[in-house]
């Protein structure tokens, strides 16, 4: 089986409040499935890697082939846990080590 190439995204949460990990991932899944449907969302292989509440920096993982879909979906988020918010992509990398170096 061919190895799945992945990409790690460092995200900055821009909101008044601080959502929980679950609320954040619900919003991401919601945005992806709204734009690409449940089949599309299932292809992304999205996973939460790290949630740094203090700096509001989150790291998520997705497959390389669906990176564009995930980026567009993240940009379309306008609220997190009922509070106005936006999610900015700070960096994208193939490994967590390189991602941390970019931040």
């Amino acid at each position, binding site marked *: 089986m061919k190895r799945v190439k992945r990409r790690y995204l460092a995200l900055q949460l821009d909101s008044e409040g601080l959502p929980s990990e679950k609320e954040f991932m619900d919003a991401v899944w919601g945005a992806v499935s*709204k734009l690409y449907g449940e089949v599309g969302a299932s292809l992304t292989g999205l996973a939460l890697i790290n949630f740094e509440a203090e700096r509001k920096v989150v790291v998520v993982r997705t497959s390389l082939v669906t990176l564009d*879909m995930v980026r*567009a979906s*993240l*940009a379309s988020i306008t609220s997190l846990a009922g509070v106005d918010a*936006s999610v*900015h992509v700070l960096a994208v990398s193939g490994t967590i080590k390189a991602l941390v170096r970019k931040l």
Partner: protein
Amino acid sequence: MTRAFADLHLRVNPKDQHAAQRLITKASKLGYRTISIPFTYPVKEEDAAKLKKMCSEAELDFVTRADVKPRNENELTSFLRKFRRKFEVICVVCDSKEVARQAAKDRRVDLLNFPSLDYHKRFFDRAEAELASNSLAALEIDVKLLLALEGPARIRLLSSLRREAAIAKEFDVPLVVSSGASEERFMRMPKDMASLTYLFGLNEASALKTVSANVIAIVERNREKLSERFVAPGISIVKEGTDP
């Protein structure tokens, strides 16, 4: 060389200094280098000067832009005659086919904006694109609607945008993507804004151009035209001699 990003459509009342300041600060934080807040006429020079000062404090380049929503051809040409040389960018908000066609063929127009959600009132078809291509006008798309709408309305909008983007590509009409934001929550980082264009069929290279090269090209071209040294496209005064 780092790419310079621009957002030419921050929709805030230029007289509302506090709101303008908030959006300018946010734009600077998000990584933009050039921004514009559109004016509607009559324009007060002092408002423009204040905005320019705010932008220079935030290390941003401020572009003067006028938005016009004419009712007919005559109103458009009269506006252009009066205001073309006062603004660096002119955008025509096309609400009728007559205005859309005239705007697309007039070389003094830089941006064509179609705000309507109604498929029948978006006049960017092949004929419009051909005219726009000859007159170097660009098609402006505001991403705010993509963020604010949901469900069937967004589906219809995406369908229209996909069709328009394909026509623009076929006729080499540059696309310009702007935020159209009146609040900070609708502002996105330039690359995030570009990534929203994937939704209507653009690839990464063209998406990035819509928030950088395409916009900067319009601003630079017009600044050159408005400079005192400009004679004609490609000809400018480099040195003035004196009589012996």
